[in-house]
């Protein structure tokens, strides 16, 4: 009976994590893999909570000393894969931001050279007009 409360709390935590994870979006294949892993995680977590000796049995089965050690190993792997995934995602995001920034920069200079006001030229009217820019390339009007 004294176990039931901690079991309830932990199960609620697992459920909360499960819900949050399924809500995040990514491309379909990764999402599918994540969901499969998630179901496994929920099952293992739930059984570990309901049958506290389950992990120790599992650990003994695969030749690891204690259930706690098994959890630690699993966490290390999970953490490393998290780092790798995040690194890749961040690189992808960097590339998107770079492409976006470059497009804006090039569009801006195109507008400037065509004589249109841009955020920068209109913000500082003291700037020399792009049309007077003697070092600029030959004008290419749209």
């Amino acid at each position, binding site marked *: 009976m004294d176990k039931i409360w901690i079991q309830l709390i932990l199960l609620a935590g697992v459920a909360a994590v499960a819900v949050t994870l399924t809500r995040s979006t990514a491309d379909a294949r990764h999402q599918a893999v994540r969901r499969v892993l998630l179901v496994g995680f929920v099952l293992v977590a739930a059984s570990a909570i309901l049958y506290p000796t389950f992990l120790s049995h599992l650990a003994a089965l695969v030749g690891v000393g204690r259930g706690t050690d098994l959890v630690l190993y699993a966490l290390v792997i999970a953490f490393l894969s998290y780092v790798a995934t995040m*690194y890749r995602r961040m*690189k992808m995001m*960097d*590339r998107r*931001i*770079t492409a976006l*920034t*470059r497009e*804006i*920069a*090039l569009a*801006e*200079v*195109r507008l400037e*050279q065509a004589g249109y006001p841009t955020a*920068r030229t209109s913000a500082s009217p003291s*700037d*020399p007009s792009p049309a007077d*820019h*003697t*070092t*600029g*390339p*030959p004008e*290419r009007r749209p």
Partner: protein
Amino acid sequence: MGDRVSDPCHNVPMRANDDTWLVVPLYNEATVIGNVVAGALPTFANIVCVDDGSSDASAVAARDAGALVIHHATNLGQGAALQTGISYVVTQTDAEYLVTFDADGQHQVDDAAAMVALAREKDLAIVFGSRFLDDRTKAGWLKKAILKTAVWVTNQSTGLRLTDAHNGLRVIRRDAAARVDLVQNRMAHASEIVLQLGRTKLPWREYPVHVLYTEYSKGKGQSVLNSVNILVDLVFK
């Protein structure tokens, strides 16, 4: 610093470089960029500075000195700025050559002019500047050792046999520049650009240049530890 920019010797007639753009990645160099642009303008009439989200007055200084300035809305890194400059020259000008040139005044305008002249004369698509072809450049032993290692790593991955890899002074002809697409935003672009230019199989050559290590450029230059970052960036793309 004045000796670097004053009196650019004209081995090439001035008008001859009308078809050439100087591409200068610019990030927080307000104190020197004006002189660098002013010193290069007599030889290279077309200069584009890519202001990589500088927080100082770099962009204004460059523009006042007579360069065209392109703005990155946020700081992305030297590689990204370089690629924006290259994209600009390829897509929005008719230039035949572009010269990548550092903003901190390490490079000599004469060297750049001579490299463009060499590219014209020998019909080369790429001319890499190298500070190790003669002994004009004075680098510390640690810097030398790191640069030599960088050269070796770059040579292993690119198949080119260069004597200097992380030299910002390069002449790139239009056809070669159009095939450059740098995704390394930070310093690893120096190896990446060699790799991509090497893949074009276009004729290239190295040219001895003098890199001037002033107190200013030393203060701003890459730290030795940064070579670790470059290596990691190259391995984990």
